[in-house]
């Protein structure tokens, strides 16, 4: 028993120390555009998957879509062109999501279907009564220029009471 411990413990220590001393380099996370993220960083590191699953369900099954709080929204801020003008590929370390995911060894499935490129500047996404325009990496809104006249019953009133609450309270709901 003692002999086993005397063999296992140094092996464990070696692994830990090797990890800490940079034999496996810590990931370099590419910088994001925009002023700040939709959630505090610590919260996001821990809970981004729960947030994405919640947003995914809302968008696909309930038709509730948000501008910045969405996978394309994340990509718009977090993915930038490389110095050579190209976008990083999903499997490269220069891609925001993969930089960390490759380090922790968790496979990302999203980009089989979702594009890893941001919408280009000038992209317009319309909402009832107003439009969002992506310019210089930030979304700005302006009054709607065109769009159909909404049928009276077709616009459900006032987002059915959805309002922003503190992210710290929300974190418990996810």
């Amino acid at each position: 028993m003692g002999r086993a411990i005397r063999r296992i413990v140094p092996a464990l220590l070696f692994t830990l120390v090797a990890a800490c001393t940079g034999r496996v380099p810590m990931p370099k996370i590419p910088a994001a555009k925009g002023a700040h993220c939709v959630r505090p960083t610590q919260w996001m590191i821990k809970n981004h998957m729960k947030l994405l699953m919640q947003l995914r369900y809302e968008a696909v099954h309930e038709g509730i879509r948000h501008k910045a709080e969405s996978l394309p929204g994340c990509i718009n801020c977090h993915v930038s062109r490389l110095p050579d003008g190209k976008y990083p590929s999903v499997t490269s370390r220069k891609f925001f999501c993969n930089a960390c995911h490759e380090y922790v060894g968790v496979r990302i499935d999203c980009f089989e279907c979702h594009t890893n490129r941001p919408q280009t500047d000038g992209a317009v996404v319309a909402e009832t009564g107003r439009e969002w325009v992506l310019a210089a990496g930030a979304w700005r809104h302006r009054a709607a220029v065109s769009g159909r006249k909404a049928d009276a019953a077709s616009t459900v009133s006032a987002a059915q009471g959805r309002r922003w609450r503190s992210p710290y309270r929300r974190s418990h709901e996810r």
Partner: protein
Amino acid sequence: MSDEHAGPGGAENDVDEGRRRFLGAAAVSALVLAPGVSLIRYAEGDERSTAGASSKTRWGLLIDTTKCKPSCTACVTACSSYNGWKNEGRPTDPQWIRKVQVTDPSTGFSRSVPVMCQHCANAPCVEVCPTGASFRRADGIVLVDRHICIGCRYCMMACPYKARSFVSENLTNQKPWAPRGKGTVEGCTLCVPRIDAGKIPACVEACRREGGRAMTFGNLKDPASAISRALAEYPSAQLRADLMLDTGVHYQGL
């Protein structure tokens, strides 16, 4: 403190020390992970998200085939460019909407009909999907939740209108609002990203702009909408009405 590392005190302390150093390194690196990000505030101006689907609405399409020219494929081109699919004629290529030339063999009368997912209320594809990936939203649109789709293609066997396609190869450069990927099933979504944002489907808009103005889109549950008034006033039909699927797409002039 777990009992697993019970043993000579020296070894236990070494492991703890190693653990603390590792956790410390992880915590420090987490703090420097996202430079320039403030920890407290979050995005403003995000309050106006889309409202969400409601069962007070049932989206429908009315297609007047008398205004549909056989040579016109505006709806197909618009759908294809909005959603990012391409049909180059291979049997494995997807096609969310197509023009079908329908000829009566006994009279010779011929009509060009756009056919897409009919968004049935009693959709067979929704019934047969084992995981529930093929589902009907509250506002009547039949969709595939590709996160849950296992690619069994049973819905393709079940659909009477051949509305669904299976993605057989790796895709790149998908549109950000229309994710699509290999191994899942797809079909007409009535352009849900546009509808959720208050616009009309791409095919309807293209038909209005460049085609024969044959398509009307609107809320079937609102008697005042253009589509409901047209359906109440002129005869219309559903494809394979005998199957009693209660489709959301109606045709005139068949």
